[in-house]
């Protein structure tokens, strides 16, 4: 999306097809048996809740899943994130975390190739109140990968 004054507003910039689809049929949804890391994320203001399950081995995310409830933005974001993270090294995960953070909070150019479908969440930055919905799962993952075990809260 270009910088500057947005003359035409379209809600579909936020609720793109990809987001509606991932909300309707979230990928990697459900408890992961034998997860080595489980962490909860909670958005006290909206009540969005998710639990993230991770299986890591030799510095790599072998498997990842989530369950919980929330708005379309938070569910789609978790669905897209878990899809994107499968098979990533911890270093790659950290890079993607930072790229995603820039995508939803700044007007900076982003690398559409490395973000892939995640770029569909770019519209969130025009809705400051909704940024926390999109980033809840990401903060939870970030915290889990850092070895924290206290539930994550976004405000």
């Amino acid at each position, binding site marked *: 999306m270009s910088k500057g004054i947005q003359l*035409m*507003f379209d*809600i*579909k910039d*936020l*609720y793109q097809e990809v987001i*509606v689809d991932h*909300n*309707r049929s979230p990928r990697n949804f459900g408890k992961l048996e034998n997860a080595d890391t489980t962490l909860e994320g909670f958005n006290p*203001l*909206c*009540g969005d809740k998710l639990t993230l399950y991770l299986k890591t081995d030799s510095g790599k995310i072998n498997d990842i899943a989530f369950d919980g*409830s*929330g*708005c*379309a*933005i938070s569910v789609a974001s978790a669905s897209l994130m878990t899809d994107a993270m499968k098979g990533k090294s911890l270093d790659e995960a950290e890079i993607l975390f930072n790229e995603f953070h820039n995508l939803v909070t700044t007007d900076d150019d982003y690398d559409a190739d490395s973000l892939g479908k995640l770029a569909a969440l770019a519209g969130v930055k025009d*809705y400051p*109140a*909704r940024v926390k*919905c999109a980033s809840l799962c990401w903060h939870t993952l970030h915290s889990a990968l850092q070895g924290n075990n206290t539930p994550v809260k976004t405000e």
Partner: protein
Amino acid sequence: MNNLNIAKTIKNTSAPFDVEKFRKDFPILNEQVRGKPLVYLDNAATSQKPKQVIEILDAYYRETNSNIHRGVHTLSEKATAIYEKVRGKVKEFINADTTKEIVFVRGATEGINLVAQSFGRNTLKAGDEIIITELEHHSNIVPWQILSEQTGATLKYIPINDAGELILEEYEELLSVKTRIVAVGHISNALGTINPIKTIIDKAHAVGAKVIVDGAQAVPHIQVDIKELDCDFYVFSGHKLFGPTGIGVLYGKEAILESMPPYQGGGDMIQTVSMEKSTYNAIPYKFEAGTPHIAGVVGLGAAIDYVNELGLETAAQYEIELLDYADEQASQVSGLNFIGTAKNKTSILSFTLDGIHPHDIGTILDGEGVAIRAGHHCAMPVMERFNIPATARASFAFYNTRHEIDALIQAIDKCQKVFN
């Protein structure tokens, strides 16, 4: 306590409610949001301000600003006179006995905390009971939880039925000689239920309990008559009554206020201060420590003048017709579920849409210029009762129109199109 009946009587005798005339008083209603005309349906969160309120705040700061109750200079005397005149207006507005019973506070929340910490903390002991309801806003739950922890008193809840009405039989079961305080909202902010507070007050008094009524949602819609209600305390916020934020009112019966210790210490609430001890000012000043929100009081006075001019009963009748129209239109939307269907309710349409989270509804409606609240409305026990995380809530004021309700319904249709 049934102003709805009064309003219905007026309906047959007065001219139609001229909503367009009143809309002209509210400059913000001409704003555009995301390129669309603003449709403001978040009045239960805060109401908009008429130019009469906006202009008096401007004039106060330009012409009269000064501190009160202490200066001998002209401006201070003027500011003091205006401030105290508004106390008189509030007394008249809610039909209290004397201005000594009118304490200015920051808002309904501070009023409830004042009563809990001054009256409650000094009169309750372990084993005593406080009764509140499942319908309450967090501001009428948390202060009582804190007080219970401090005193060892037990907190009990009057449950609600599937329509969102208090179950009075259960209330009677909860009442006993152990009941010291009953705290109840006059109108539910989450569902719009008008509670039968006169009955609740009478039954509480029969066992010797004191009653505090949270009137934050009621004062913009119902003409409150303290003498008729006979409650011990009543609180409300100016900003929901078309006045400024940061100012509110605690009404307390004179004898009870007299018996209560100060809530906060500071200037203006004392008679004398020595190094060893202070003596306190008379009520209501005993409860108004520090320089108050003088401009807020001035604005509240203008807001009360405005609603007096408007006529709350006439406005209430118009709002009932508006809610009926909204209910009728919303009931034709497939997949829309009403949350809160009390027989006696006002100005709030709380709903969910199948398969669409309320926060997404809020955002998509905003895209159409329609401002509603999406969330738990600071009433999480109500959400728990209906087993939902949140609702979308459209709340109306007398300046809303049928045309705006049509815009709401069209925006809801848009939500469903985005997701299907």
